[in-house]
């Protein structure tokens, strides 16, 4: 490229907004560039991760040392404890996992990976972030209004969530529903963009099976979200009416039924697990193929498996309700579907292993994160079998076993998957190479404490410890000494893990200030985002250099080629396919 990227950015921007372009920081705020919107989502998500992490720190301190004056927070009252637990869950799923994995990387990667200059609806994309930003303010505001934040668990079961004489947070609980509802609207707007961009804006020559798997995963996740969230939006309307104007949708005394909410919530809630899981699995497969220098094992099977997972995920929701009084025959059906859905997910894990088999593996930071994802998610998946089987679940329900199980699924997704993606695409996003040594310190400093937090909690759960108790010393017959030791161990590990996150931020700061400049394609990967500058200019490629695609994204170590990679946009030599 002859022209410097800076001029190009300026030139195109001039074309776009010649007559109404805002200036200065407003230009950033009102940008329609998918990369800028991705960054906005990512930084908002990272900020919320700190908020959610702080909440975990406060309530873990309370559990390990009941009644302690928690540094940075103070004494934790029972109401505050419940609000902290509730909003920790809500924030980590809706304001961290979804914005970072789905929105930030979806926005960043889809146009670059399909060879387009932007999303198909840049303004809708901007609106999506703006709605999301408002939802962030609403959920943060709900924490500090009179009465405190909503404290009825992130699943918000009525009657606790519907009636303020029970939950004592008349404002907090309504703001919570509004915040979550707005967040859904933001992701619906974003999802429509993702789906149409993949369907319609692929580069010339790119067929459906030439699309990188991570893009497929993000789009399938968006479709799952779109098809599952509707009933819960309807449920949210009903819940707000129950809270504010006194209808009785979930009130048996008025002809309603609280179980209806559980159905509406989990009909969304279970596909939601796959909404955040699939993008993480996609990120991992991109990293594994690149650093194993091998073609991904069974590309098409992966796609069909993902679609099958998506379909199945709509038929497992009632496994959250085995003790809610549902018909045992119904419980049998949902046990079977739940155990069935572990088959495609296990298959994906085998695909990872088969892709690694015989590859020439580079163990750098992104690869470590990717491998850690497979290992830890496997534990999460296997412990899920216990909970999916109705018989075992009746014993484990609402114990720390459940809590440890879903942290072994969500932590690999939201934290490990996000770190894998950030360390892998950091050179492309910021144009600098991260420090690998610091990255590895951060990796081990996160992974080891993570296991040290949740393995003790598995043990506690098998010991029958209920997960919603504020202070175990109030129940001497439940609080054996070694149970308390386990809680102290978990809390100590959490403190270590949180402390090690400073290494990551220091690495980020150091890289931006002093890091070596990243070339176009530092990992020698094939997909299209590596064919443009790092970071890509506005419009991603020069209009006359828009990529054309000749092959799939996983042609590594092709025999008879000098290079062990084969970019998607490189024309084949004359005469061959």
């Amino acid at each position: 490229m002859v022209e410097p990227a800076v001029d190009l950015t300026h030139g195109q921007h001039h074309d776009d907004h010649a007559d109404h372009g805002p200036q200065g920081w407003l230009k950033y705020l009102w940008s329609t560039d998918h990369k800028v919107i991705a960054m906005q989502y990512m930084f908002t998500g990272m900020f919320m991760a700190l908020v959610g992490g702080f909440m975990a720190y406060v309530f873990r301190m309370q559990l390990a040392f009941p009644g302690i004056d928690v540094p940075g927070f103070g004494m934790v009252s029972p109401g505050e404890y419940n609000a902290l637990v509730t909003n920790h869950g809500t924030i980590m799923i809706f304001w961290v996992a979804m914005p970072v994995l789905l929105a930030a990387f979806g926005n960043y990667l889809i146009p670059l990976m399909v060879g387009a200059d932007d999303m198909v609806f840049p303004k809708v994309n901007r609106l999506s972030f703006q709605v999301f930003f408002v939802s962030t303010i609403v959920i943060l505001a709900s924490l500090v209004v009179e009465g405190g934040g909503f404290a009825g668990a992130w699943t918000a079961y009525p009657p606790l969530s519907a009636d303020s004489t029970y939950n004592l947070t008349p404002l907090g609980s309504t703001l919570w529903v509004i915040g979550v509802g707005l967040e859904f609207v933001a992701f619906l707007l974003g999802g429509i963009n993702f789906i149409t961009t993949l369907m319609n804006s692929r580069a010339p020559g790119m067929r459906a099976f030439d699309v990188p798997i991570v893009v497929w995963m993000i789009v399938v996740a968006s479709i799952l979200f779109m098809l599952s969230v509707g009933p819960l939006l309807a449920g949210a309307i009903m819940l707000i009416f129950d809270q504010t104007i006194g209808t009785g949708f979930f009130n048996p005394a008025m002809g309603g039924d609280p179980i209806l909410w559980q159905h509406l919530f989990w009909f969304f809630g279970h596909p939601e697990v796959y909404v955040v899981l699939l993008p993480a699995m996609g990120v991992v497969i991109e990293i594994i193929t690149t650093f194993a220098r091998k073609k991904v094992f069974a590309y098409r099977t992966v796609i069909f498996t993902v679609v099958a997972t998506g379909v199945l995920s709509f038929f497992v929701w009632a496994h959250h309700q085995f003790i809610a009084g549902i018909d045992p025959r119904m419980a049998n059906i949902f046990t079977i579907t739940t155990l069935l859905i572990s088959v495609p997910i296990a298959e994906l894990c085998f695909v990872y292993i088969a892709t690694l088999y015989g590859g020439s593996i580079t163990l750098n930071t992104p690869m470590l994160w990717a491998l850690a994802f497979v290992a830890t998610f496997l534990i999460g998946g296997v412990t899920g079998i216990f909970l999916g089987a109705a018989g075992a679940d009746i014993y484990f329900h609402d114990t720390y076993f459940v809590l440890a199980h879903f942290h072994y699924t969500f932590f690999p997704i939201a934290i490990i998957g996000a770190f894998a993606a950030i360390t892998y695409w950091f050179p492309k996003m910021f144009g600098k190479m991260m420090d690998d040594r610091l990255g590895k310190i951060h990796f081990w400093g996160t992974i080891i404490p993570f296991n040290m937090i949740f393995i003790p909690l598995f043990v506690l759960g098998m010991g029958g410890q209920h997960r919603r108790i504020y202070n175990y010393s109030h129940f001497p017959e439940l609080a054996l000494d070694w149970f308390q030791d386990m809680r102290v161990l978990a809390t100590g590990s959490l403190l270590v893990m949180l402390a090690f996150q400073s290494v990551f931020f220091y690495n980020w700061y150091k890289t931006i200030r002093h890091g070596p400049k990243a070339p176009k394609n530092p990992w020698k990967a094939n997909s299209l985002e590596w064919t443009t500058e790092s970071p890509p200019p506005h419009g991603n490629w020069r209009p006359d250099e828009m990529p054309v695609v000749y092959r799939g994204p996983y042609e590594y170590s092709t025999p008879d080629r000098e290079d062990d990679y084969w970019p998607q946009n490189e024309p084949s030599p004359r005469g061959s396919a």
Partner: protein
Amino acid sequence: MRPIATTRAATGIATGKLAVWWVLASEVVIFGGLLASYIMFRLGHPEWADAAAVTNTTIGAVNTFVLLSSSLTAVLAHQAAERGDGRKAAQWLYCTIVGAATFIGIKTYEWWYEISHGYTITSNGFWAFYYSAAGLHAFHVIAGAVIMFIVARDAAKNIELHRVELIGIYWHFVDIVWIFLFPLLYIAK
């Protein structure tokens, strides 16, 4: 200037139309969830029929007729837009907006009548669903009319004529939702 991405059509379907269909897919599950909940409740509560008996089927039928007619004018607008006649398309769209306004007007009278006779959203489960479902639908009618006004204003100047079809697709959806609501809330006594 539009991005190159917006002008591509790898599926052969125009991007705008594709997006509208996905919007409708997401809307279908919102109304689907609400109506499925209503139907389950209705089956479990035979006594709700007493409340349903109060709803005015005649007014409901008139409103159905108004809304269906407004879909006809939306189709005529699309036809005019296909011919490239933006002015005519805009006129038909304005007719559709008048239909929407009539629908909302009749609805306002109906609700005013019912509320003033003591049938409010908190009366019982039936009335809660009645006002929520019809209210959510009415909200869609109003939103559609506002968007239609913007599309019509452009169409009159022969700008963005393809949008006439898109708002038409949305309008038919709003219509179809009412086709489900009318029997569920009015006819099933």
